[in-house]
Each structure stands twice: as C-alpha cells, then as structure tokens.
C-alpha cells in the first residue's frame, strides 16, 4: 500500500473518532449548563471542555470566550477552527476522497453523505436543528461509519491503519477527559447530595460509559471506580487498556514478519495498563500517570510515521 494511502486511512479513522468524541463532550456539557449542574461556576464547565479538547491556542487568538455560544461555534461548526466537528468531518471526507480505490463504496458514500449534510450548516441552522439532535446525529454517523467499515471492506492493511487512527484518537481522548476532570473535580464538596453522582456521571457519559459503569459495579458512582473503569478495565471499549490492546493487535497484523519499533512502544503502553493497579495509580498521582499515557500515544503516532514512511 502507498504510504500516503496509509496516512489518509489513519487520519480518516482519527477524524471520525474525534468528531464523535467532540460531540459527546459538547453534548454533556450543554446539558449540564441547561440543568445548572455546571460545576462551581458556569465558566468552569466550559473551561473543562476547553481543557479536555486540548486548549487550542486558536480559541483565545480568535477572541472566543468561556460561554456556550463561543464554545459551540468554535468546536461544532467553525470551518476555520481545526478543532471543530465540521472540520473533522471535512478532514475525514477529504482523506477518504483520496482512498476511493482502497475503501468500499459504502464507506465512501457514508462519509460523503455525512459531509454533504454538514457542509452548509451554520449557527442558525444548528440552533434550528437542535444541539442535542445534532450531537446525537454526529455520534450515529460515527457508529455507522465504524460499522460500515467493519462490515464491507477487506480486513487487510487498509482496515488496520484505519483502526490505528480510531484507537490512538480514542485513547488520547479518554486520557485527557479523565485527567481534566480529576483536576477540576478534586476540590468538590462530596457532602452535597448528588454532587458526586452528577459530576462523575457526566464524565461517564462523556466517555459513553454510564451504563457500563452500572453493569460493572452495581453500586454508587465514585471517582476511584470511574478511574478504574476508564483506565484498566479490559472490557470497556473506550478504556485506555482496551485501546492499547487494539493498537497492539492491529500493529501486529501490519508488521507481519517485521519487528517494528512502533510495536514495542504499543506493547510497552499496553503492559503498563495491563498490569496497573488503580490504587497504586491514585497513590502515585493520576495526573502524572495520564500525562505519561498521552505522551506515549503521541510518541507512537510519530513512530508510525517512521515505520511506515507516513507523514503523520
């Protein structure tokens, strides 16, 4: 496969996953702000959104403020912003346009149809449509794309590069979400009735894990268990361990008989999560642990470029 093709597949996977994660984070924060559950101050909810999404410098450069309208504009539909849902869908679509010879017709049509539906969407259109409905639609389109790619295309190198993009993006997203929330909710008064439930319940929803939490623990929501679920549980498809395991598998398939540095990096990341104990992680400092995971994912991304001659 051409290296540029691999690059495009990787980014298609990343962009689609990023659009979905953006939608989920924005959706939950939007609902919290409506319910008056936005943390100590209304701004803190939006500050968290900004932190989870990596504090892009363009946000302040462009004079955006910590309010719902600016956050929504910047992260949902701004075509100039490299961090918006619309930008991600466009990026995925442009990458896919160069991939028509290697992906299935259904995959292309799914992604192209998604793009055509947001291409002309502006703020007024978004408000008219309803934020909630829009975010749900973005998640649906991502699920559809993932299903279509799983069910219609060859599970060959193209598929593995696509999924590498998916799981690198997802792992990065989960780590940033948890890291941000552990810091911002640290000083929360746990005595207020329901405060922990609403705050950490939101975190679970932002990681699409609310139901999974209850199925797993059948008990009240505690920050420690949320951390355990999102970091070390192997059966949760958005946990760091699950993502790392997927990276290892797809890389093994891509490497064939070769022995690649990227495999070693992914294996090391996975081992650290596979054998982690959540009480130790919390004792030693969860921020340091998660920052290390984010760095390892970035290193792995750079190594992919070297091992497969890509430009990631």
């Amino acid at each position, binding site marked *: 496969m*051409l*290296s*540029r093709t691999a690059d495009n597949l990787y980014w298609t996977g990343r962009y689609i996953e990023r659009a979905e994660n953006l939608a989920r984070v924005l959706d939950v924060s939007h609902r919290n702000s409506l319910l008056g559950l936005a943390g100590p101050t209304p701004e803190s909810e939006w500050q968290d959104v900004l932190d989870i999404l990596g504090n892009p410098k363009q946000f302040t450069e462009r004079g955006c403020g910590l309010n719902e309208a600016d956050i929504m504009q910047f992260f949902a539909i701004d075509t100039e912003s490299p961090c918006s849902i619309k930008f991600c869908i466009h990026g995925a679509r442009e990458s896919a*346009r160069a991939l*028509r*010879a290697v992906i299935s017709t259904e995959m*292309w049509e799914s992604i*192209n*149809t998604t793009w*055509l539906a947001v291409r002309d969407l502006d703020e007024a259109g978004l408000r008219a449509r309803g934020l909630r409905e829009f975010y749900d639609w973005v998640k649906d389109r991502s699920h559809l794309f993932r299903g279509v790619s799983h069910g219609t295309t060859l599970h060959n190198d193209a598929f593995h590069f696509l999924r590498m993009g998916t799981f690198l993006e997802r792992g990065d997203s989960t780590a940033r979400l948890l890291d941000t929330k552990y810091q911002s909710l640290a000083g929360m008064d746990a005595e207020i009735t329901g405060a922990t439930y609403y705050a950490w319940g939101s975190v679970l929803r932002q990681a699409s894990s609310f139901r999974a939490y209850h199925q797993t623990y059948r008990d009240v929501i505690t920050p420690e268990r949320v951390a355990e679920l999102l970091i070390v549980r192997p059966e949760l498809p958005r946990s760091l361990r699950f993502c790392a395991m997927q990276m290892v598998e797809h890389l093994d398939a891509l490497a064939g008989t070769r022995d690649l540095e990227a495999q070693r990096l992914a294996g090391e990341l996975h081992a650290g999560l596979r054998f982690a104990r959540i009480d130790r992680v919390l004792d030693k400092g969860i921020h340091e642990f998660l920052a290390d995971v984010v760095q390892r994912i970035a290193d792995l991304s750079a190594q992919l470029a070297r091992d497969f001659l890509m430009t990631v």
Partner: protein
Amino acid sequence: MTTPAFLDEMYGLSTLESFADRKSTQVRAPYQAIEEWLQATDPAVFARKRDEADLIFRRVGITFNVYGDNAGTERLIPFDIIPRVLSAAEWSHLAAGLVQRVKALNLFLHDIYHAQEVVRAGVVPEAHLLRNSLFRPEMKGVDVPSNVYVHIAGIDIVRVEEGSFYVLEDNLRTPSGVSYMLQNRAVMMRLFPQVFAKAQVAPVDHYSQELLRCLRSVAPPTAEGEPTVVVMTPGPYNSAYFEHTFLAEQMGVELAEGQDLFVRDNAVYMRTTLGPRRVDVIYRRIDDDSLDPLAFRPDSMLGVPGLLSVYRNGGVTLANAIGTGVADDKSSYPYVPDLINFYLGEKPILGNVPTYRCALDADRAYVLEHLSELVVKQTQGSGGYGMLIGPRSTREEQAKFRELIAAHPDGYIAQPTLALSSCPTFVEEGIAPRHIDLRPFVLTGANGSVVVPGGLTRVALKKGSLVVNSSQGGGTKDTWVLRS
C-alpha cells in the same frame, strides 16, 4: 441569422422546438425502444428520476472541479436521462474509422521522432514540426514499447446528417470523460432497468479491464513478473480527480501522486508501507510539462524528478507517451487524412471537418472575410475556451479575433459552423432537441486497438448552443450502442 439544417438523431427533424407534436412514425430505427419508453412514461416520473440521478451523482461523488473557481469547488455535470443511441451498423463503421485513425497517428508519432519520412515525402512541412512547441525534441530516437505512443485516445465525433460522421478533434494527451461513460450507464440502469430489457444495449463495463490489459501489454521488457501499473494524478484539485480515483479503483491499482514516486538506479519506485516497490507502467493523467521538474517546468511540484531520464532509457512506460500533443493540436488536425493515406495506403473512413489554416495566405484571407460564418479556434486551446463562434458573435468579438489572427496567424484555424445533430433532451420546457457530440475511447496496446462500444455523449443544454464542453454548461448522456 439562419439556423442551418441539422439532423435530430431520434426524429430526423430539423427543429429546435419541443417535440409535443412528434409522430412515432418518424422515429429512426435505433430509437424505437426509447420512443416506446417515452410514450409509456408519465412526464412526472422523468422529473423525479432526474432528481434521483442528481442525488446519486452527488452521493457517489461524481463531480468535477472547475478551473478558475475557488479551489476545491466541486460541481456536478448535468446528466440527461434520455440516452443517445447508435445502431450496430453505425457503430461498426465508426469503430473501424477510429481504429484506422489512431493507427495512423501512432505511426506518425513514431515517424516524427525517428526518420521523419513524412517530412521527406512532403506530406507535412518540416517547419510545422519545428515551430510546434508540443514537438518534444527529448523524444527523438527514443523507442517506446510496441511503438505505441497513444494508448488512450478520445476522439471527438460529430454528426451532421444521416450516415456522415466527422472527426472534430483528436485528444491524444490525457483525454478525460470515460468515467462518465461508465457511471452514466450505471445510473441509467439503476433508474430505468426496464428500458434495457427492450433495447439490446452492448455493455461497456469491461472498459477498465481492457485498459489494464492494454497498460500491462506495454510494460518495459525488463519488468519482472506481473507488471505493476499505477494511475498518476496531479491530486484532488484537478478537474478530473474523480475519474483518476475511479479508474484506479476499477483496475485495482494504486493512485499515485508525484510525491509517492521516486527515481533510483534507472527505475521508478513508489513509497509503500512495506518499503519501495518498482513501478513498470504509469498511466499518467498529468501534462508533459509537469512530469519531471528536472526536465520540464522546474516550478512544478506535481512530478517526479528524474522520471524523463528513466523513461528515455526504457526503465518505465508512460501512457500516453511524452510528446503526443504534436499530433492532436488543431494545426496538425488538417493533415490527418493525408497521414492515413501516407502510412496505411487507405482512404480515411471518417472524414475531417473542412478546416482553414490561418497560417496559409489564401485560407487566412478567406477566414478574415467570412468571420461571421466560421468557428475560429486556437490551435493549442481546449475546453471550449478562446474560440469565436461566428454566427453568434458580436462585431467587437470579430474585430478582436481579426487582430489576434493577424498577429499570430499560425495560432488559429477556422471551420464552418457545423450543424451538429441533436437528440431529445429533458429540459425545463419538457423534452426538446439539444445539440450533441460523441467522444469514444480507443485503447491501443501491444496487440492492437480496442474500442469499447459506447462513449461519452455531451449535450449543449442551452437552446441552440453548439458548445458541449462541461466547463461551458454542457451535460452528458448515456450512450447506447445496439447489439443488432
């Protein structure tokens, strides 16, 4: 202004008005199934199906990018749902003429880059070659596999009356449009499967397989095992990018950009995730000028440094060859019938449109006196740009062309305004005749030429317009060749 008489391919009429009072008895034989279908179908169904077609094209992403528009603007080429039909007899006549013409053009290209017997015999003046910027001195003495220069030709055909097809233009560089031939058929079959049951339409789907076979047949003799073929594209902003991806997908080969290829040890390689891989045949959809920044335009980022040198040494095959433009520009066009005669000793099966060369004193004098009747074209122009359509031009436009021709006589040719045939077309006011042309595609490899039975029919959607180019508001139709 009088509208010249022309042939409507379906009704044999010569009117631009709608067909409300058409009579089934007038229908030409190949269109019989279409007539039955039109009669039996509620007009509202056509309107709905046309919208459905737009939706399919949009979703599948069959678009083209417009030059001079914002980068990346994608447009649909309007698709007309009423097919254009050719009988089996008409087609076999056309196909024989096309193969004959391409054969002569290939011999001509080999000759001018070798012994130049055509010049010595006085058929083409030496000055014509020397003056032509599309003549590539780099190609002199270079041997290409099987002596094939033009592997893919798109020959533009117009019809004026019953039984008379003319060649309007040869496209021998990177002719585009074949993806529309294939997609129009696919969409037509999806929208109106029942009409195919009545008409026996020859299939076109195997074009991509023929193309791949043709490209593999001209691999360098040094190629090991199954030759590796790639399609080379200038990238997503090229107007025909959809077609490049489509053909790569249909053939199951890589779609490479210049940055994906590199030269080492007299060979071309592509960068793959498993390391470098040798490339044997490049179906390039990129101009000569952009192929190799070391040899041609140094500012081009699209090409591959060193490609020309590998090519000249036979390390890789380019399809089409470098330097074919000299045989398809409009100043060479008038010579083609003589070339057929010279190389093949045959009479041309398909004629040329009578052409006046402004470079010749007598012709120029005639052209300048009859500007209001003629179509004037730049010898090196394409896409319907930079032309004067005499009968529809203003005095100012004529004055401008008078000056242009005086300043660069060899830059212009002129032809009579042709009465292109028309075909019923679904437009705002219902079904009405619109002028059409036809671009069939001729594939030539080591084992001769193949013409897939069909082509791209372009239609001028504006009433009375003779310009069918997609960049000028033209549309397309499915083209049916009947099996018997």
